[in-house]
């Protein structure tokens, strides 16, 4: 069965450093991968989408890589700030919208 893992349940990092979150999957060949941010008591908010034929995507301080051979995506936040503290979820999907699955999330805390 499909399985998605995110490197750790929680990650603490010092302000100004680069946070790197990992999403690994098995038994799946996704057409795309998305990253969402979820704050306590709120719904997830979309951040970035990367397709299977793309290696890297950037948006401001965010960078996502996608390695379909390793079955892994890395999510980087550079120059991290306390306001970046949240839970980050990866999600995989196919082009038919039939197999959309979220990972368990990583709770990031950026310490001042």
């Amino acid at each position, binding site marked *: 069965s499909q399985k998605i893992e995110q490197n750790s349940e929680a990650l603490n990092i010092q302000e100004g450093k680069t946070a790197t979150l990992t999403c690994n999957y098995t038994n799946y060949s996704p057409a795309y991968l*998305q990253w969402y941010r979820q704050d306590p008591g709120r*719904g*997830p908010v979309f951040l970035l989408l990367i397709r299977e034929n793309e290696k890297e995507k950037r948006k401001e301080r965010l960078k996502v890589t996608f390695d379909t051979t390793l079955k892994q995506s890395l999510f980087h936040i550079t120059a991290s700030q306390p306001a970046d503290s949240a839970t980050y979820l990866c999600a995989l999907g196919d082009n038919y*919208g039939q197999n*959309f699955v979220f990972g*368990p999330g990583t709770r990031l805390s950026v310490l001042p």
Partner: protein
Amino acid sequence: DTAVSQTPKYLVTQMGNDKSIKCEQNLGHDTMYWYKQDSKKFLKIMFSYNNKELIINETVPNRFSPKSPDKAHLNLHINSLELGDSAVYFCASSYRQGAETQYFGPGTRLLVL
């Protein structure tokens, strides 16, 4: 100007009751979803509707019945509530199926006593 709205925000009820959660999106999207997020924060898709037609129906008890009166609404009715139904339920929408951004509502926190 809320894009995806849900009511109620909180719902506390007794076991065995029937309850409904309403969802509306004003984004003009074709596809709407219901998700359940349990106490371990795992977000799992329950249903997906595209233009009022059921597309995905994951393994959920048939006590859960989604209803889509029109493209902008997807309501969730739950019969005979059980303790294990306690969770946060999120509604979401996307422009269409497939590789699209999903926009989530604020969630409905259901507590079954």
